[in-house]
């Protein structure tokens, strides 16, 4: 043809590319070809356009950029001949997708081709439209496609039907135009048209309820008849697959019947017979037959209940489940998952087989089975199921362990019948797969451990044993270190021995060994080491004989390159060396962590893993001396009143424990499901952000002392605040302060005193509450509300309103004034009296509404007060 063309043939190019030994060679060949093609494009070469495009498609398939060839597709499509159009449309579908602007240019060519006299060209245009059309094109060309649904050649009708599916998916508004032509396709005899027509109707029903109603009313019986004819049809070689006539049509009909039967008893009724026939008569020894049975089961489980059919369906699934073919077992598990909602009891019957599938060698089947087991667990079967899964954990693949561990932890937490069982199972999981356990999970475990006071000794001994064998599991190490720090004395003295335990002899230095191993492990990360340091400090007080050794370990870390560890080491060393007198108080056992709050918080982050709390704040009885409330008070002052830049003024006790309570943590008692769920625990476990430690206040140690005997006085609060804001990040002045304050005696108090709170604050207004209470009447609280104007405008007609829930009674005294001067020059006070009928069980909560006028303009501010101190 063109003697001047240097282009190689397609076949030669492919050969040249295949002959390349290296990727670089291949790139060079492709580059050369691309250059030639570009040159041809620039010359507007007509003879080789189709060959060049074919080459480009091949190059595209190899993953090289080919955007420069997009316009060539359009040119070929616009040319009159079939061969050019054929390759042009192919290139269009391969090189472009619906998001390219260039595609819009083809709309006109498409429209012409849809009206072409050659039916094959119409077919090409429909195919391209169905595969890549955008919403705009769908809108423009929908009328053509609609018309082609009635075209004389069935091969065009079927293409138009599939094209319509794409159109209605892109532009759902167009669905109603297609309802009538689509239903007329259902009466066709040609299988291709019937298959595509049924598919179109299925998609129409999903998109438009109008279509669903229409097709349900008009076509259900016809479809049932079609399926019956198909199921009873004699052998027809053209459509036969493994002895079944057109399984594809079978499946599509069953799918459409499912959509029609769902939620409609009449439609479901009319298809019962044929479903029963398909379910019983279909051969199940080949893929095709099983595919039909699978679809049929799915339809039976979805349509309105018919007892007999359901039994039949579940039996088929049971047969599938015991099949030797992995594909069949996979789909059985898949289907059982969907059947659980319809008939959990029937699925439970196959539990043993499903459990076997969890141990299958096939990862896809394992994953399905595990998910199914997860939904099958309930209160009655949790023990055996969890045991099976945990046993399997030992031998499972590494890459499956993460999934399995997460599921086991979730199951155990959700259904544990008693604490000891929960702790036992978690210890097993930690010993086997501690490295896969998520942070929330081991936080939760610590919460449970602190709450199970009678099991402290048992837990710490069990952990001690587990540590001996599984010291490589990070989370196990953390939990062990924490528990040894808290309950080390119980470990040594065998406190709280249960009958089931074997006696164990652990010396004090053995216990310290554990922590030392943990801190010196190379694998230990910062969190673990920090926890180990805190544990050592605690042990130094619990085991005086080891105090010197512990000090030596701590001293080593004074040179740590990690700031957090270095700082802890220096502080802890100072405590051990200089402050013997307060050390034992400092390192008291942690107060019991509030389980309900923690679970409530967790409920948000782990859906389905925990139930929502019923009682917002419960302080559980336990053997620990220190009540929760004083601690919370202690924390209140750190966060509420401290004007220091670091919001959590950081009191000394907190620092000692590595606790860094953010302002949110004080609300933990209020039981509000607010954001910082894990923070509280995180902090208590001494994983606070290192920054908070730098501003250490010292006086709070005093309040912590006194809080053992009396409540914190307001004076303490104030002094702590003033000092905390002054104290620097330097350790030395801190120690001086500590020395200065340590000997001061605890204060006497006539009654409980609560810190003030800021109940409401906006840009324009602040409302603070001061509390007082008569000791003889603990249910009643007197609140002094103080309003301060933060703007430079005077507020007039000032009215404060408050609302409380039913268990509270509120009495409002008249306000001191109804005018609030500007810039905080004076304030309005008003006293409120609240009686809490659920005193000790529920905390106060209040809604406020404040109305006033600025320069005669009405202003309304509303708020909710959740940060009342507890025990009001």
């Amino acid at each position, binding site marked *: 043809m063109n003697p001047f063309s240097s282009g190689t043939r397609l076949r030669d190019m492919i050969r040249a590319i295949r002959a390349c030994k290296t990727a670089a060679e291949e790139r060079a060949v492709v580059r050369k070809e691309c250059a030639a093609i570009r040159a041809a494009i620039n010359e507007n070469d007509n003879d080789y356009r189709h060959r060049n495009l074919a080459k480009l*498609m091949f190059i595209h398939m190899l993953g090289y950029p080919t955007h420069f060839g997009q316009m060539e597709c359009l040119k070929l499509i616009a040319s009159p001949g079939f061969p050019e159009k054929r390759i042009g449309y*192919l290139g269009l*579908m391969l090189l472009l997708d619906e998001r390219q602007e260039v595609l819009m240019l083809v709309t006109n060519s498409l429209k012409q081709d849809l009206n072409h006299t050659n039916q094959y060209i119409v077919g090409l245009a*429909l195919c391209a439209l169905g595969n890549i059309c955008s919403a705009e094109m769908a809108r423009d060309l929908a009328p053509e496609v609609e018309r082609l649904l009635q075209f004389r050649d069935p091969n065009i009708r079927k293409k138009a039907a*599939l094209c319509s599916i794409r159109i209605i998916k892109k532009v759902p508004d167009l669905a109603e135009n297609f309802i009538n032509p689509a239903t007329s396709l259902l009466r066709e005899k040609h299988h291709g048209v019937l298959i595509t027509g049924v598919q179109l109707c299925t998609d129409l029903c999903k998109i438009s309820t109008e279509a669903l109603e229409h097709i349900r009313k008009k076509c259900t019986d016809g479809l049932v008849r079609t399926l019956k004819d198909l199921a009873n049809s004699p052998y027809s070689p*053209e*459509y036969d697959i493994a002895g079944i006539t057109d*399984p594809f049509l079978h499946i599509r009909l069953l799918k459409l019947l499912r959509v029609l039967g769902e939620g409609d008893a009449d439609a479901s009724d009319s298809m019962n017979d044929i479903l029963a026939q398909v379910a019983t008569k279909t051969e199940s020894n080949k893929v095709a037959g099983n595919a039909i049975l699978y*679809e049929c089961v799915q339809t039976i489980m979805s349509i309105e209940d018919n007892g007999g059919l359901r039994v039949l369906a579940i039996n088929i699934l049971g047969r599938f489940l015991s099949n030797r073919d992995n594909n069949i077992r996979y789909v059985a598990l898949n289907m059982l998952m969907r059947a659980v909602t319809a008939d959990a009891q029937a699925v439970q019957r196959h539990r043993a087989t499903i459990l076997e599938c969890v141990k299958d060698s096939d990862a*896809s089947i394992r994953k399905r089975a595990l998910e199914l087991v997860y939904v099958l667990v309930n209160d009655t079967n949790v023990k055996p199921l969890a045991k099976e899964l945990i046993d399997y954990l030992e031998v499972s693949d590494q890459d499956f362990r993460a999934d399995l561990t997460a599921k086991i932890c979730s199951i155990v937490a959700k259904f544990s019948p008693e604490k000891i069982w929960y702790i036992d199972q978690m210890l097993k999981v930690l010993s086997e797969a501690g490295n896969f356990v998520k942070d929330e999970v081991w936080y939760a475990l610590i919460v449970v451990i602190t709450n199970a006071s009678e099991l402290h000794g048992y837990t710490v001994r069990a952990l001690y044993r587990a540590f001996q064998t599984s010291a490589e599991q990070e989370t196990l190490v953390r939990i062990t270190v924490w528990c040894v720090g808290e309950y080390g004395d119980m470990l040594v003295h065998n406190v709280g021995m249960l009958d089931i335990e074997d006696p164990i002899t652990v010396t004090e230095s053995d216990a310290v060994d554990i922590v030392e191993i943990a801190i010196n492990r190379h694998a230990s990360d910062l969190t673990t080491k920090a926890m180990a340091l805190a544990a050592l400090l605690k042990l130094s007080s619990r085991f005086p004989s080891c105090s010197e050794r512990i000090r030596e370990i701590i001293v080593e870390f004074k040179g740590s390159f990690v700031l957090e560890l270095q700082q802890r080491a220096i502080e802890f060393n100072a405590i051990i060396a200089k402050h013997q007198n307060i050390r034992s108080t400092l390192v008291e056992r942690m107060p019991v962590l509030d389980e309900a709050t923690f679970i409530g918080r967790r409920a948000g982050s782990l859906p389905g893993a925990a139930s929502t709390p019923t009682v917002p704040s419960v302080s559980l009885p336990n053997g620990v001396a220190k009540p929760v409330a004083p601690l919370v008070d202690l924390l209140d002052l750190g966060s509420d009143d401290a004007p220091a830049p670091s919001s959590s003024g950081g009191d000394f006790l907190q620092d000692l424990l590595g606790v860094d309570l953010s302002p949110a943590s004080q609300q933990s008692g209020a039981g509000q499901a607010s954001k910082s769920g894990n923070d509280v625990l995180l902090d208590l476990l001494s994983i606070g952000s290192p920054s908070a430690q730098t501003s250490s206040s010292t006086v709070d140690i005093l309040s912590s002392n006194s809080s053992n005997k009396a409540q914190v006085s307001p004076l303490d609060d104030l002094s702590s605040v003033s000092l905390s804001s002054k104290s620097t990040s330097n350790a030395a002045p801190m120690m001086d302060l500590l020395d200065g304050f340590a000997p001061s005696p605890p204060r006497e108090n006539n009654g409980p005193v609560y810190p003030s709170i800021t109940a409401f604050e906006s840009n324009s207004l602040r409302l603070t509450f001061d509390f007082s209470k008569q000791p003889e009447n603990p249910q009643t609280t007197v609140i002094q509300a103080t309003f301060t104007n933060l703007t430079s405008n005077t507020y007039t007609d000032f009215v404060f309103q408050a609302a409380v829930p039913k268990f509270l009674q509120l009495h409002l005294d008249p306000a001191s004034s109804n005018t609030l001067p500007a810039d905080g020059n004076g304030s309005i006070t008003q006293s409120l009296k609240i009686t809490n009928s659920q005193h000790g069980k529920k905390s106060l909560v209040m809604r406020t509404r404040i109305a006033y006028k600025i320069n005669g303009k009405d202003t309304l501010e509303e708020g909710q007060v959740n940060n009342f101190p507890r025990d009001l």
Partner: protein
Amino acid sequence: MIQFVLLISRQGKVRLTKWYSPYSQKERNKAIREISGLVLTRAPKLCNFVEWRGHKVVYKRYASLYFCMCMDEEDNELEVLEVIHHFVEILDRYFGSVCELDLIFNFHKAYYILDELLIAGELQESSKKTIARLIAAQDSLVETAKEEASSLSNIISQATK
């Protein structure tokens, strides 16, 4: 609905890709890489389904080629498996015991066949015979056009001699 069709050789080379949902070039490459990683490493005799980013990939190996179809979560896995087989049988009939080389050098033909089998990710025709007939008819259209063109160029070259 079938999201895309992939043909991958045992060495991980792509032999055919067809996308029925919009994926950018980057996403396509990523999908191909991830799916080859999943599928090629699976031992024989395991089930033919792998889960991939909320979809399911149904694959089947024929000689050195893996045929993969990615489908929606709620579709019928066994049916898609049957669709793959259907496709392979049609290819086999067309090429006459098809092999990987046929698909490399005649990749466009494989695409033409796929276009007669699937549109918009849905099955179009369950009869192998019909598809073979349609492809043959279109091929002959191309042949006639070619012959016409060559006879025309012969006449021109004769005339200009």
